[in-house]
């Protein structure tokens, strides 16, 4: 369930006796995005422990950033949050007690020595004159190949999509060797399949997946019956 109000899925879960999956609620959390990002990072870096993670963009309004912090923070990752000051208030440093979080306002400083850069989608309707024009954002915070050179040489770049190429990220970085966006897309499907499977059928005690051995042998909906065609 996706909802604009933070906590709406919790409310629904209290009133229904079926599993509820939060697909993004307001500025609270986006659990499946947090999981697919962690899976992508683990596959590329071999671990999600003790990494330096930089998150760039509108952190204040981002449920993706919060889910990333709550997941990766439990594995000892340290966070640098960066963006225009109205999008990166200092209170964010306290959202996950026990996790090291700092807010910085210069992208060059934020990228220094980082292992993972997580971009957030810039809501272009939030870029308005005179406080912050698209051009100001590009000048101050766009991730370009030149800026990315301050990160570790094997740093990776994630973006939840869809990307505004030429706004928050340059096309050469978006499609470059450090970009993980294509893995994120396939991992997103895998993580969501796993969540549906675990919540609806439950995992086997020994962790095996007997059902996964048998792909559906026909290319139609996996329902028991094909619905009868209505007379036209």
């Amino acid at each position, binding site marked *: 369930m996706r909802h604009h109000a933070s906590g709406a899925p919790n409310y629904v879960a209290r009133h*229904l006796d079926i599993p509820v999956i939060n697909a993004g609620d307001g500025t609270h959390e986006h659990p499946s995005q947090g999981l697919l990002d962690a899976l992508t990072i683990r596959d590329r870096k071999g671990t999600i422990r003790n990494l330096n993670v930089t998150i760039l963009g509108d952190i204040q309004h981002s449920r993706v950033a919060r889910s990333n912090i709550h997941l990766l923070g439990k594995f000892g990752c340290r966070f640098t949050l960066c963006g225009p000051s109205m999008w990166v208030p200092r209170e964010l440093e306290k959202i996950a007690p026990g996790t090291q979080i700092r807010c910085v306002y210069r992208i060059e400083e934020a990228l220094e020595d980082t292992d993972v850069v997580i971009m957030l989608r810039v809501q272009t309707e939030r870029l308005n004159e005179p406080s912050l024009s698209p051009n100001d954002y590009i000048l101050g915070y766009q991730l370009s190949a030149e800026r990315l050179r301050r990160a570790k040489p094997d740093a990776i770049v994630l973006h939840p999509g869809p990307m505004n190429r030429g706004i928050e990220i340059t096309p050469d970085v978006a499609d470059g060797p450090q970009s993980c966006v294509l893995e994120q897309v396939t991992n997103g499907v895998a993580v969501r399949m796993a969540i549906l499977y675990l919540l609806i059928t439950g995992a086997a005690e020994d962790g095996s997946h007997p059902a996964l051995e048998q792909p559906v042998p026909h290319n139609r909906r*996996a329902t028991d019956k094909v619905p009868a065609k209505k007379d036209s």
Partner: protein
Amino acid sequence: MTPRFRDLLALEPLSADELTFLLDQSKPFQEIQRHPLKKLAVLRGKTIALAFLKIPRARASVSALRLRVWARTR
């Protein structure tokens, strides 16, 4: 002990072990993504409601869906 989840509402309350379990359980589904046919029968017969409550008009259709989900699961 295999962790059990009724809902997935947030990552904040989950432990590192539970999060690792969820990531590990996703591995076989990554394999499926490389198959020519990316479908599985694991949810055969179940009804899933996708509720994207961003547009006001969606409300009525979701309450109809909810009735259907209840009817199928009880």
